[in-house]
């Protein structure tokens, strides 16, 4: 899932760099607040451990193939989201430089795809919610598998979005998704199994090694900063990324046109714009934005009429839809989390 | 000058789960003495050493460095006075180069850059490793790592040197070099070790620990020559003393 530079355009790469470095700085700040200097060597050694663990394979039950640990989820289970994110970022950096596994421009994307989703979504919203404080039980195993799958699915989807937004690969969105998601579903299950296997052992041998055992605050409180962080990240990603991504609508539309035929392209665009228009009408009470004029004046056909794109194409309409879309995603993630929580409470 | 004295008074230590590791440990080590802490595995040697720089806090009793009681507030000062060298050099050499590892202590003590450089250079020269100052630690041999680990502590100009199994994993030449080095140090030395031959050569006094208690204390030759005592506490008479006539 490590993205190479060759498929990223500087705009997308740059945006994700900003997002990732911002997240790293924020995590560094949060870590400083907890003032746990014991973490310094621990994070380094655990990063080294991940590398070593990647060399060790286990045979996947049922199939004949083998798999190994990726590390994002287990790092978070051991260190908590902030420290784990930094460790994951450092692991990816070493991989990029020494193994040419992922490009430098794409490093920001990779850190986000492989770090943010396991540390800030899969762990707090899925793993902790399902597993609660159990370890080694069926529930804990399921939690690990579901969390790993969610984290990797989101990460894989991130790859798709970033590649499409870059407009270098011709791979149509639909095909790309069909390629990435099932593969990473399998990888996610493998990751979940490996993670659960190790966590089961560690929880029995040394329970205080797990982050959840060291949390002084109640789970509810510790979710708040995570959710706030998620919100900020989503707004940035949704808002900024859509500004930048709209630079290459011609590539996306061009390939859509090539694959799916002209009528479908205009049809899709009409629906999109209809939806956008409705949304914008609803939000027209926001002062000084002038959504409606933007919506009716720039029809998609005109966009593809080879006018030199301004970079970044700042259009309030796109960024609102980006933010709204992002918030919907966040909301969905939260809903899933709460739904699972509610189901547990109901049992 | 009074910082050279290390005193432990009725020290007790129990692990969080309740296991008693040390009970009623008391001793006094004075200026320039070289004392060996010996005992079977699990006797509590390493645990005791960790009290001498404040890393562990006794559950009862106290530790005094010089005339200063070792408590949380005085821990930083204690760590400058008491330099501790641990068993595995890889755990102590964690910076990118030898120079930076040796500079770590002085820098933490707040010394200015020029001072730090002086301390580092003299410490490395003292252990004969000045030529390796730009080497990364993983490129050193076991003996070199051991010497550099000692240098990392020497650079802080401690009054007391505490060492945990300093001769482990050293080849004969490396060990001989270490013994020569230890004999040349004027610091107060407290060495926990299984290497009883080294004890004979370097230390004038011996403290024997068994099951967390001090069971014997006295001049090296006298104690180590006492076969019954040695065998009773999981040790044995060192070979170099077997040919000595007991006085």
């Amino acid at each position, binding site marked *: 899932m490590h993205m*190479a*530079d*060759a*498929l*990223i*355009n*500087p705009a997308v*790469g740059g945006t994700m760099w900003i997002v990732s470095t911002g997240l790293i*700085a924020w995590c560094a700040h949060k*870590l*400083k607040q907890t*003032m746990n*200097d*014991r973490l*310094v*060597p*621990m994070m*380094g*050694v*655990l*990063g*080294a*451990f991940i*590398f*070593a*663990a990647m060399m060790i394979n*286990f*045979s996947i039950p049922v199939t004949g193939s083998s798999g190994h640990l990726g590390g994002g989820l287990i790092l978070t289970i*051991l260190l908590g989201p902030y420290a784990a994110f930094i460790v994951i970022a450092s692991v990816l*950096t*070493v991989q990029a*430089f*020494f*193994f*040419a596994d992922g*490009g*430098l*421009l794409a490093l920001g994307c990779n850190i986000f795809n492989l770090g943010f989703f396991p540390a800030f979504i899969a762990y707090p919203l899925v793993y902790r919610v399902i597993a609660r404080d159990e370890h080694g039980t069926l529930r804990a195993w399921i939690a690990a598998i579901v969390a790993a799958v969610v984290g990797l699915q989101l990460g894989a989807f991130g790859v798709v979005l970033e*590649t499409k937004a870059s407009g*270098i690969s*011709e*791979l149509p969105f639909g095909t790309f998704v069909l390629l990435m998601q099932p593969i990473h579903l399998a990888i996610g299950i493998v990751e979940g199994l490996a993670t659960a*296997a*190790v966590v*089961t*052992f560690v929880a029995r*041998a040394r329970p205080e090694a797990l982050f959840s055992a060291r949390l002084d605050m109640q789970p509810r409180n510790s979710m708040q900063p995570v959710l706030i962080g998620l919100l900020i990240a989503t707004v940035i990603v949704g808002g900024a990324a859509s500004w930048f991504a709209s630079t290459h609508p011609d590539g996306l539309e061009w390939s859509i046109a090539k694959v799916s035929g002209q009528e479908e392209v205009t049809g899709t665009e009409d629906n999109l714009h209809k939806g956008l228009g409705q949304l914008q009408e609803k939000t027209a009470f926001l002062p000084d934005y002038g959504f409606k004029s933007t919506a009716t004046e720039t029809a998609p056909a005109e966009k593809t009429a080879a006018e030199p794109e301004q970079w970044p194409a700042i259009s309030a309409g796109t960024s609102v839809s980006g933010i709204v879309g992002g918030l919907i995603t966040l909301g969905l993630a939260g809903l899933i989390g709460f739904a699972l929580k509610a189901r547990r409470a109901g049992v | 000058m009074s910082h050279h004295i290390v005193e432990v008074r009725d020290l007790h230590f129990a692990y969080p789960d309740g296991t008693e590791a040390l009970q009623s440990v008391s001793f006094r080590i004075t200026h320039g003495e070289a004392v060996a802490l010996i005992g079977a595995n699990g006797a509590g040697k390493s645990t005791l050493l960790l009290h001498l*720089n404040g890393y562990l806090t006794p559950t009862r009793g106290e530790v005094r460095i010089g005339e200063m009681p070792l408590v949380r507030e005085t821990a930083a000062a204690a*760590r*400058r006075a008491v330099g501790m060298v641990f068993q595995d050099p890889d*755990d*102590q050499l*964690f910076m*990118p180069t030898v120079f930076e590892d040796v*500079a*770590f202590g002085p820098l*933490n003590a707040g010394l200015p850059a020029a001072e730090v450089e002086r301390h580092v250079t003299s410490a490395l020269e003292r252990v004969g490793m000045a030529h390796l100052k730009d080497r*990364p*630690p993983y490129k050193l041999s076991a003996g070199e790592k051991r010497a550099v680990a000692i240098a*990392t502590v020497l650079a802080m100009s401690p009054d007391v040197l505490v060492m945990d199994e300093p001769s482990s994993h050293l080849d004969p030449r490396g060990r001989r070099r270490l013994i020569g080095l230890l004999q040349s140090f004027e610091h107060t030395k407290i060495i926990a070790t299984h290497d009883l031959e080294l004890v004979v050569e370097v230390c004038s006094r011996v403290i024997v620990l068994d099951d967390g208690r001090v069971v014997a204390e006295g001049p090296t030759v006298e104690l180590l020559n006492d076969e019954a005592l040695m065998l009773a506490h999981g040790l044995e008479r060192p070979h170099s003393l077997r040919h000595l006539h007991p006085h």
Partner: protein
Amino acid sequence: MGLGQWIEIGRLDELGRLDTPVHRLDARAKVITTLVFIVVVMSFPRYEVSALMPFFLYPIALIALGRIPAGCILRKILLAAPFALVIGMFNPLLDHQTAAKVGVWNISGGWLSFASIMLRFVLTVSAALTLIACTGIHRLGAGLERMCAPRVFVVQLLFLYRYLFVVADEGTRMMRSLELRSAGPRSLRLRVYGSLVGHLLLRSMDRADRVYRAMVARGFSGEIRVLRQTSLRWTDWAFTGGWTAFFVAARIWNLADGIGRLFTKGAS
């Protein structure tokens, strides 16, 4: 990822500690130049092929001046190629519109963009590898910190690197003792895996505790302090400035095309 790749990291790091004019350049200058390089290369439109060629000068020059064995870099590029290949492969399959003619053959846009992707891949990957090969992780970390990367992150990078081999070594030893006691293939059953990797994890944590103990014994109280600060010299400015000018020029004008024209004009 096998033992062979570990030896490779060791090699790359050794290369990073050589002493050549390139190695002596400040890490910041090299990092910025490399980033500019990558951004410019990736800013080309989809079908550009010939204009990318002059950019090979940068990694080649660094490899030559930095005395880095080219085979080392090439091998890593080949190992990393599959991902870009797999994604890029779709382009010729999907894009059949003829974009260029070479003699009798019609070359489709898909093939052009595919070639462009692969060229960019080789360029960007070799730039990154060359950067680490002629800088080394420690100078790179120091440079990143001077460029305001969070201290926690840089320290993390250095500690990770420091204990990479140590932990990998322990893992290798555990695997070896396991292999000596088993008759079958190397893949473990899940329960054994959990136990083995779990043990490795606990040992790693124990080591981290011992390192922490040693750090505290030498006065550590949360901040890793730095000793030497390097300053930028005129060679660093010249390096970055010169190469950036070249990249921009090669972006604006298709130098390969120009040279080609010179030759064809001369020939006719």
